[in-house]
């Protein structure tokens, strides 16, 4: 049994690679504005969406791209303006730092048992919302 199937077998999200990408922050390039840009940063979109959907079920008050974008952006120095303006590399560093601070300050959320930083969970939620809005 490999890592991925193990997670499924234990009733997990099957998104081990997704959180790995979250932990290591290997974001994609491209620079769409605001929520589009944030939502598109995650490499493993399928896994991120799985987490994101679970997060949105757990925190329905944030089921809005605008809310999620604002919440993520407020964790970046300079806010939304900076999110739109800075390079991918710089944004990557800032979001990694924001997540580490989330963990440090116990701003965590439990999504189907996974202990995640709020910032990374919200990025996943953005990815989920974007996928929902995109025709198959």
């Amino acid at each position, binding site marked *: 049994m490999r890592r991925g199937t193990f997670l499924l077998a234990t009733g997990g999200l099957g998104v081990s690679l997704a959180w790995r990408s*979250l*932990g290591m922050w290997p974001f994609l390039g491209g620079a769409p504005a605001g929520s589009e840009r944030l939502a598109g940063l995650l490499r493993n979109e399928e896994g991120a969406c799985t987490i994101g959907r679970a997060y949105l079920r757990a925190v329905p008050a944030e089921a809005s791209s605008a809310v999620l974008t604002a919440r993520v952006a407020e964790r970046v120095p300079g806010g939304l303006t900076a999110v739109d303006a800075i390079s991918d590399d710089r944004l990557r560093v800032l979001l990694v730092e924001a997540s*580490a601070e989330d963990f440090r300050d116990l701003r965590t959320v439990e999504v189907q048992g996974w*202990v*995640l930083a709020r910032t990374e969970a919200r990025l996943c939620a953005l990815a989920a919302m974007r996928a929902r809005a995109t025709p198959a």
Partner: protein
Amino acid sequence: MFADARSVPRGTNLTADVCVIGAGAAGITLALELAGSPLRVIVLESGGFEFDAETQALYDGRSIGVPYGDLDLPRLRYLGGTTNHWAGECRPFEEADFEAREGIPYTGWPLKKPDLDPFYARAVEVVRLPTHDWSLGHWASEDSPPPLPLRSDRIVSRVVQEVEPDIRPLGESYREELRAAPNVTVLLHANVTAIETDRSGRTVTSVEAATLGGNRFSVAAETFVLATGAVENARLLLVSNDRQPNGLGNQNGLVGRFFLEHPRFLAGYLVPSGADPNLGFYRDHRVDGHLFTGFLASAKEFQLAEGLLDLQIRLELDYGDAPDDAAGFARHLMALAGDIDSWQELTIPGAPVPIPYLDVIREALEDPEDTYVYLRGDIDAIGLTTRIEQAPNPASRIVLVRERDDLGMHRVALDWRLSDVDRRNVQQTLELLGAEIGRAGIGRVRILHPNEPGWPDDLNGGQHQMGTTRMSDDPKQGVVDRQCRVHGMSNLFVAGSSVFPTPGGATPTLMIIALAIRLADRLKATMAR
């Protein structure tokens, strides 16, 4: 010396200064400490030198509370007692483990750590550990795999020292000392069935002993020490109800209550960021030849702030498709045949085909999983198994049942009860661990059964039965006083983990031995006068 109770003439009344009932960790320690003193000591041991199913069956009992498994499984009823299958893990209680915890009733000891430090030092010598030092600084040396690089002290790595396997069965490792002690007689196959008192019910005069073959005799002594484990200590007090209808020491209904364990279950998984998170520190390994293993725990400050008790997190590696038998190993070995790097260290150089060294084959057959891990080296996930310091709970108890054993003694039932504090402890500690693991970039933690009421199916005891004759200065809060003397009794003492009022997160054996040494010192000092 050793003697056989089956050879004692029926109806004999043996006499001693001290009668110790039970020859496990506590009883053997008492006997060793009293050896060479002027006191005449008789130790009554139910079993012989080896395991015997008929004797072991005297332990049979029922579980009527939280599922516990076979009640006799954690215990062994022959010379050495439960040390005969002891894993050898030792760690002393910390200062905070003795303190009452705000918001958690019945916690705290009447003793403080400095009261026990001298006895811990001697206990270390009994089990022949190399050092009294359990600090991370001592064990996380450059010769050891490193502890996880956590970035705060909210979750900490700790160590348990492990007693060498040949020392663990104390009945074997100290057999010659016991045989040579001129003032100590260890009477094998002697089962105590009742404790007799004078008319006042406050002074023990003798104990009744029986063998499975039907022999019966008694032992009179000046002082008696119960050292039969948490279940049997309570059982013996409860069945001894000739003068005290509720049983000896049970005037406040506390005997058998506050049964404690170190409940354990798989509470979560850590899925590492990398393929090799180097968790060797958390597996059994040696530094300078000395065996120890690491574990994770919440810091005492966190426990105190959150109103929690201790909790150990053991890391158990999950190697996914690692084979579990030799045939499986062979299949994997074939599959790996193309991996030259792996093979080079294991095969005879220059051979026309890969021929493993003989010792490689032998080791592989003995432990296919470890060998496979050596070859593959990747980890699927790390199981997080919790060992909870159970909160004291008067409803968690040993009770007598109508059924009797082969000697006519009432059997017992265990009504094991856990509390919300125990459940909350797991949840909050795992949440904190998840945050610290994420912060350090080690991976992510998934909590199994998050915030669910009740307990998972794999919940079990940690094979550490404690707390049925708890220690307190107040007779309304405990069965024994700080000297381990039964409240209301002049000459009856209890040794072993049944006196623990709060179990700590540490394994109990070192504390059992330390308390036994302390009791022996007191008996020597007071009885010599």
